């Protein structure tokens, strides 16, 4: 438990996973701090989350308008100064649109929204996620219309070389292949990192209790909060 850890959660118009994310952070014993998208500077914080949803109705492109919202200048600056930033689903799309993460998230090749439970494998150990070992399998929900992760030509090898691939869609045994790829993401990529900035399509804030289907999301968020894998929830 670390009641002093304050986690900013940015709410854009149309964000809709904000309450779930706030509840998850609170349940893990950290202090959620609501950040309005109109802010031009950030208060003193230990972490920032861009939650999921349909910011600005996904109009133009998912995340494209939110990436230009006033608060994003402050987020970008704070990220450059080392503040850990986590984007979940629409938050991931916003970080890609802003250029804080490599790649882009395209519409699912099926043309359809997809909501289901999904297993993902931790592809690379990350200093941002203490205690989350490489090869760990997490069961998390996905829910998106634009989750097909793509990179520019020649970029993919670099991502792997630099250990920037964080999560990959896999089967329950950890094998990543075409049949375990729900959305046509290149190399089954479900999450990427760029130094202290991380984005992922699955929703850890929805996997906080066994009765909801999994509590692996609690493990993932606890590790990002530096509370290790065994945080009391």
């Amino acid at each position, binding site marked *: 438990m670390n009641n002093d850890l304050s986690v900013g959660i940015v709410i854009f118009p149309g964000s809709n*996973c904000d309450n*779930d994310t706030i*509840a998850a952070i609170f349940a893990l014993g950290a202090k959620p701090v609501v950040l309005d998208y109109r802010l031009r500077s950030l208060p003193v914080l230990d972490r920032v989350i861009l939650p999921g949803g349909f910011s600005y109705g996904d109009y133009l492109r998912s995340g494209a308008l939110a990436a230009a919202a006033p608060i994003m200048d402050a987020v970008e600056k704070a990220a450059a100064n080392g503040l850990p930033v986590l984007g979940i689903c629409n938050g991931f799309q916003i970080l890609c649109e802003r250029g804080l993460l490599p790649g882009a998230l395209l519409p699912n090749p099926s043309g359809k929204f997809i*909501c*289901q439970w999904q297993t993902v494998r931790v592809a690379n150990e990350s200093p941002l996620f203490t205690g989350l070992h490489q090869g760990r399998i997490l069961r998390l929900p996905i829910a998106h*219309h634009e989750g097909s992760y793509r990179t520019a030509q020649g970029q993919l090898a670099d991502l792997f070389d630099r250990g920037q691939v964080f999560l990959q869609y896999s089967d329950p045994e950890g094998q990543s292949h075409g049949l375990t790829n729900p959305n046509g993401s290149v190399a089954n990529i479900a999450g990427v990192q760029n130094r202290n900035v991380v984005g992922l399509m699955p929703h850890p804030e*929805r996997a906080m209790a066994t*009765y909801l289907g999994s509590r692996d999301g609690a493990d993932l968020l606890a590790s990002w909060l530096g509370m290790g894998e065994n945080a009391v929830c």
Partner: protein
Amino acid sequence: MLTHQDVGLSASEDQEIVQLLGRRPNELELGLFGALWSEHCSYKSSKNLLAQLPHQGQFVVQGPGGNAGVVQLSADWDIAFKIESHNHPSFVEPLQGAATGVGGILRDIVAMGARPIAIADILKFGVNEQAPALLHGVVEGIGAYGNAIGIPNVTGSLGFSAVYDANPLVNVLAVGMRRHGLQVGADGARPGSVLILIGQGTGRDGIHGASLLASRDFGAETEEMRPTVQVGDPFMGKLLMEATLAVVGKGFADAVQDLGAAGLTSSTAELAYASSVGLIVDVSKVICREQNMSPYEIMLSETQERMLLSVPKQNLASVLEVLAWYELPYAEIGRVVAGDFLRIEAGDQVLAELPTSVLVGSCPRLPVMHDVRIWDAGQPSVLEKIGLQSRWGYQVLGHPDCRNRSSVYQRYDSMIGTRTVWGPEHDVAVMHIGNGKPGLCIAVAAPARWAAYDSYAGGIGAVVAALSLVAAQGAVPLGLTDGINAGNPAKFEPYRKMADLIRGIGKAAEIFEVPVTGGNVSLHNETEGQAIWPTAAIGVVARHPNPEHPIADAPPDAGVRILALNPPANPDLGGSVLAEILGRSDRYPVLDLRAIQHSLRFLVEIIPQAETVGLLGCRAVGIGGLFFAVAKSLMTKTPMALGANLVLAGDADARFVFNEMAGQWVLFVDPEFQSFWDHVSETHGVSVVDIGWVTGSPEVVITAGRSLTWPLIDLWRAYRKGGVRDVR
């Protein structure tokens, strides 16, 4: 010069208006009457029928008449819930028609001051070439709105028949929660308050949607009706929802009314009538998103994502602060005064003034025709013995009404909000509310085929089906909502079928003592003289005893006993999927409601203490019969490693495993508790029959005289991809 036909009124209604007013209405006034006296807004053909439904119950906070019914879940929470239809628009423009249907019912819930926490969709489609495209568009529309606004779609019902070829049904149930004791509605407006219209700018979309699209049969000109369908904007809907909930949560508004069918006309008139006040509305103040809109167009526009607030003057500044925070467009469009009229002005010019007692309160209602119920000639029930055939198992599971629904529900976000314990992969939804107990159980049922030849029996069956689903979780039903869908009420047969359907619903609701707290009637689901089956979409909300640990709907291990609770003494295939496969059109059977009532009570009593009697799982039998219930229980296990060995009495046959007589259940029971279940008939007055056991071999084996075997993988294939279709 606008005539009564132009606004969808009959000559006699026109005369009635002149008589009640003592003068001819002007064109704008005639337009207002056309909207409010339409079938869609006035329920003129069904209101007297609906009055027969039981509305009172120990958990009822708000019965019919408001934007949604409200029941009490716990000491802290009330549940607002209602079904709405968007059938006609969804045929004309599937994506936007369905999307705005979701938006509309969500605004009804919000207008009750409740935060929406779940939606469920009840869909019926045809079987022609156009049907898959319609299904795709409707599902996309429901998802586009629900996913974006962030309300999980937790359960649903999907059915198919040629009768829906030109009249698909799109009914949506929305459920919301609000603090117990919060009073919000359209009936609290007080003189002196200010009317504020918030949300989307008013445009020319949806004009005459209520009166000319939803209140008429379809014909050759339907294609031209597309401009009467509104366009949804879930982003604006989200802002509107949050702002409205913030305003009502703080008690800043004395009345709230959403703008749905007939837009500003119905919202102002109904708010005035419900609150017994006068309203003065200045249409020149309404924010329009198109140039030069006439007062007529402004009053009748069905632009989505708008809400009308009545705000006492002292709260005005606080309300405007909330609206500014959400960057929501708003305008002060009028004021509340003492009186009983609706006055429309443009600047200092009075354009219309009508007493709301006439405009809302005096629409002539069709009297109830009291007669014995009718049914189609149909064939007599299948009484003769029918030996089981293995292909029927595949055909039933592969029938469009039984088939796996994941391709639909995976397009809906079912988990957002983190309350969904059981979502659409189960037969019922289980939701976690606040701090654990109690939770909420939500089920829908729309067994339309049961009402095809005898809508009274079908109406009863629909209620029993919905109640059976929540009973399988041991949940206590708090209230029902009914979506009635039928043909042209001006014609004898469609009217009588609708009347019988409603009577059936009322009968069952009365016997089981579960009130109907609101609903929706959609008529004129008819094209070129062909009406749909009278179709009841029943939604039920129930108090779940233990939402963190729902009782399973599948057996845990091999060796578990399989029991049938309340199997019918005389199983009858009437109305079943198998009967359709066999080309029969038998009436749905008469159910033993007393026996069902005993079983419902038994489950509610026993499931919270299931462990003490070795009850390991329970599933209601519905469409597809007991065979489908057992097979589904086995197929939902991953991996599919279990099977069932059913040993039936020598004279049991296809009727026993494929009948769809609602109010029976499959139970999975620990054999160590066999003695309790052997005597449960004496101790609890319910009928329980031991029908077999769970095996470690993934196949269904039924022995009744001879033995038949269905490998589970083959059943799964039929369930996933459709069965042998050549016999249909």
